[in-house]
């Protein structure tokens, strides 16, 4: 089913024999990749297969070890992202590159000359007038503080420019005040205003609700119809079949195949992506029917340093032998929820109890001292869960040294335990003293999981436990958590992939702006419903159709 290589004339760009390694890790190995003018081309691969690296090479961020890039028929050697921009290549990075303290407008126009800005924004002057007379909310809202006239004029032009692609945001806002999807819009406009003909989107849907994803897709399709070429990086097959024309599959840093999406079978794609037939089904053993309460959270509220409410009045319970999933857009209070329960931050008000033992406001050590065995696998594994430059033994010590007697540290028990963890979880490392930061993402996660499981917890909190892991490692994590569930441990699972949450958890709680939108039975819900709740609709409102809050 492979598609024969297309003629160079209709290619937007082609990359040949691209290789790139970071230290000892070879991220790209002789990859060939071509995208035609006016197509949406998916770049499919597992985490760590080299998709982002390849596209960072195309956008001039990384310099390839070897290989050749030609754009619109001409061979190019990009020395900086600026070079790539001048060739019409623009990339929307997975981790947005915005200065939080500058306005959206400033972020967009920085690096352009005044002339370039006006040329880009005024190409379709007649169109703009048309829209602005029709659309009253194009004008600046009066309460918006007019910061400076020069930029305000440009802000208006940007607003109109964005309208042409049905993108909507307030360019006068500071980047730090924008929502995640608005930040993405700013990034897209930033690229478009630089006249990009080739747009690279790195996992754009990871941070969006299903509804926002739909909107993004219509924007992308519109751009394709205007003659743009789009590279869409993803590991979600559903999105690729919905949006893309062709797909190139990467596996372990090599390109496997390029196919026409309409002619391809999903199972074939998975096989090409993973390299063999695999069972994608996530198992969900039945929860403990006794429904004994483990963790009980009531009216939990937390205000951060700046006084912003990160959690407001969150109440829920978890049960032994059950996995409670937590869904929500990035930054909806998941991190604060976990840290408040684990005792790392002190909640402003509310109560947290485990087995009716109040632990709210206690430090992690006093929680342990109370006899509550809880473990927490944080989102930032190397920055919070582990000490990056230390080996496995010293990281195992992190949870043990305080209980040793005397002033000197004894490492013998910890190193025994480390050997055991390495053996049980099959961790690939040259030795227990090898710095954990040099391990692969999957092995790092296994180190922390192994350490925590060995503490025999009754409550386990995991934040984004499979982020950045390949499918095999992800399934190891699911298996380990399921084992804990079978041993009657209560698991709180913060996740981001809605399909996984629905398949893996028993119940799902949805957070939005730090509020609990409701708890769903995973057997009786849908992605659409969760998506609505993620963007702020309460469960009662969806189920009954009546908006209690606004009726009140």
């Amino acid at each position, binding site marked *: 089913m492979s598609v024969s290589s297309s003629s160079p004339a209709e290619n937007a760009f082609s990359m040949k024999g691209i290789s790139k390694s970071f230290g000892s890790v070879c991220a790209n190995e002789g990859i060939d990749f071509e995208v035609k003018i006016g197509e949406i081309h998916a770049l499919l691969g597992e985490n*760590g297969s080299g998709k982002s690296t390849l596209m960072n090479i195309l956008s001039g961020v990384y310099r390839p070890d070897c290989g050749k890039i030609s754009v619109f028929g001409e061979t190019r050697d990009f020395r900086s992202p600026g070079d790539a921009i001048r060739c019409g290549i623009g990339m929307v990075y997975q981790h947005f590159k915005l200065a939080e303290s500058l306005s959206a407008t400033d972020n967009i126009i920085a690096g352009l000359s005044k002339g370039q800005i006006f040329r880009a924004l005024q190409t379709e002057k007649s169109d703009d007038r048309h829209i602005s007379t029709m659309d009253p909310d194009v004008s600046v809202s009066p309460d918006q503080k007019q910061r400076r006239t020069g930029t305000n004029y440009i802000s208006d032009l940007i607003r109109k420019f964005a309208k042409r692609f049905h993108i909507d945001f307030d360019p006068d806002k500071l980047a730090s005040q924008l929502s995640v999807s608005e930040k993405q819009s700013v990034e897209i406009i930033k690229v478009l205003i630089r006249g990009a003909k080739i747009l690279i989107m790195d996992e754009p849907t990871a941070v969006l609700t299903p509804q926002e994803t739909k909107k993004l897709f219509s924007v992308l399709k519109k751009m394709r119809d205007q003659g743009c070429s789009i590279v869409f990086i993803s590991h979600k097959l559903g999105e690729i079949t919905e949006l893309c024309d062709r797909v190139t599959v990467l596996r372990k840093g090599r390109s496997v195949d390029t196919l026409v999406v309409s002619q391809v079978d999903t199972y074939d794609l998975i096989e090409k992506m993973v390299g063999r037939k695999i069972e994608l089904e996530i198992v969900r053993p039945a929860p403990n029917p006794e429904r004994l309460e483990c963790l009980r959270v009531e009216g939990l509220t937390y205000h951060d340093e700046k006084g912003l409410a990160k959690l407001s009045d969150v109440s829920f319970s978890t049960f032994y032998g059950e996995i409670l999933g937590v869904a929500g857009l990035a930054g909806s209070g998941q991190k604060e929820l976990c840290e408040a329960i684990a005792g790392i931050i002190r909640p402003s008000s509310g109560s947290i109890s485990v087995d009716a033992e109040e632990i709210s406001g206690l430090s992690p050590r006093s929680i342990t001292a109370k006899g509550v065995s809880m473990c927490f696998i944080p989102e930032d594994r190397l*920055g919070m869960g582990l000490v990056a430059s230390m080996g496995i033994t010293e990281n195992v010590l992190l949870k043990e040294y305080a209980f040793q007697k005397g002033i000197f540290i004894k490492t013998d028990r910890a190193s025994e335990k480390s050997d055991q963890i390495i053996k049980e979880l099959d961790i690939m490392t040259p030795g227990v003293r090898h710095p954990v930061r040099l391990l692969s993402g999957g092995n790092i996660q296994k180190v922390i999981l192994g350490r925590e499981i060995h503490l025999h917890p009754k409550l386990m909190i995991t934040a984004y436990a499979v982020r950045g892991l390949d499918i095999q490692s992800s399934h190891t994590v699911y298996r380990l958590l399921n084992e804990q569930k079978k041993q009657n441990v209560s698991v709180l699972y913060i996740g981001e992939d809605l399909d996984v949450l629905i398949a893996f958890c028993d119940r799902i709680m949805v957070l939005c702006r730090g509020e609990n939108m409701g708890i769903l039975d995973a057997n009786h819900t849908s992605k659409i419903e969760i998506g609505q709740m993620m963007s702020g609709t309460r469960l009662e409102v969806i189920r009954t159709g009546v908006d209690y809050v606004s009726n009140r």
Partner: protein
Amino acid sequence: MFRIAKREKASITDSIRFRSLGFLAGLLLSMGFIAVLGYNPFSALVTLLIGAFGTGTGLRNTLTFAIPLATTALGLSVAFRMKYWNIGGEGQLLIGATAAMFVSLVAGENTSGWILVPMMLLFGFIGGAWYALIPGLFRVYFRTNETLFTLMMNYLAIAFVKYLYHVLWKDPLKSGFPGIRSIQEQAGLPRILGVSAGIIVPVILMIVLYVLISRTKPGYEIRVVGESEPTAHYAGMNVQKIMVGGIILSGGIVGLAGAVKLSGETLTLTESLGGGTGFTAIVIAWLANLSAPIILVVSFLFAALQQGAQIIQLRLNVPAAVAEIIKGLMLMSFLGSEFFLRYRIIFNKRDKSQSYPQILSASQSSDIETDKTPDKEVKP
């Protein structure tokens, strides 16, 4: 052309290799500079070496320079391990010396040296610790920028010592001239082969700190806090307590350096007692990668450079500025070598063909052994 790539980790031999290369590069640059000025670079080098190590006086001077440098750098390294930028070494050193001077002033003329010296050292420690604690508490509890706070504390200390020198502790016997009297004869540290007995202080401290940092619970806590404060919180450590403890230790050792310098070298307190030791020690601690044993080596090298440059100036009759430029060149090349510890330069063969990548170059050969980790994630 060449590319720059990040180095995953540099082994100890690597760091010694690149630091020595930096040192050599500095030496070559300096010799080139001397040659340009029309002097014989080789005789300059020989003069420098003989001046620093070759004669009894030279070696004694070098060691005398090295004692406060090493002690101060050891003290600062404790704070730096916690990523606490204690730039206030100069001030803590002065206040340590001031506290020691205070002991000497209040003690009677005939107090036994066996009481006087330990008390002076103890007060030196307390003085430095207390002086480091002021910015430390603000950093720990209000997150005030410690770099600038400690920096300002230096100038407060200098102004304070000036005040003591000119007004409060002015020796009436000096009839109008400002100045503080010298410490009692028995308050001076004894001499071993012409060098102050203070030389054992950095050696003992090196052993103590090495064991403390690598083998004990507080040391482990300091290392974790320095690596990542969130991890320390996560592990249930009391980060604030640990930092305050570390800051007291750091400032105390620097204060001790001041007391040792007073009691073993200057014998009286002046505003220039610090003489930039606090700043030089920061660079030393950094170059030594905060490792206690290496700090002693680097301090000795810096002291030798200081002493050697003076001798060059005297013997070859070059302007003082030349000696300063030589020291500057050495310092900057030494600092610049840090780049090679963190990055590798890879020379590209201009190979436009699509053949299999040629990514390995000679400079990389040492990394090949460790190259076996990458794909182990994937199992059959």
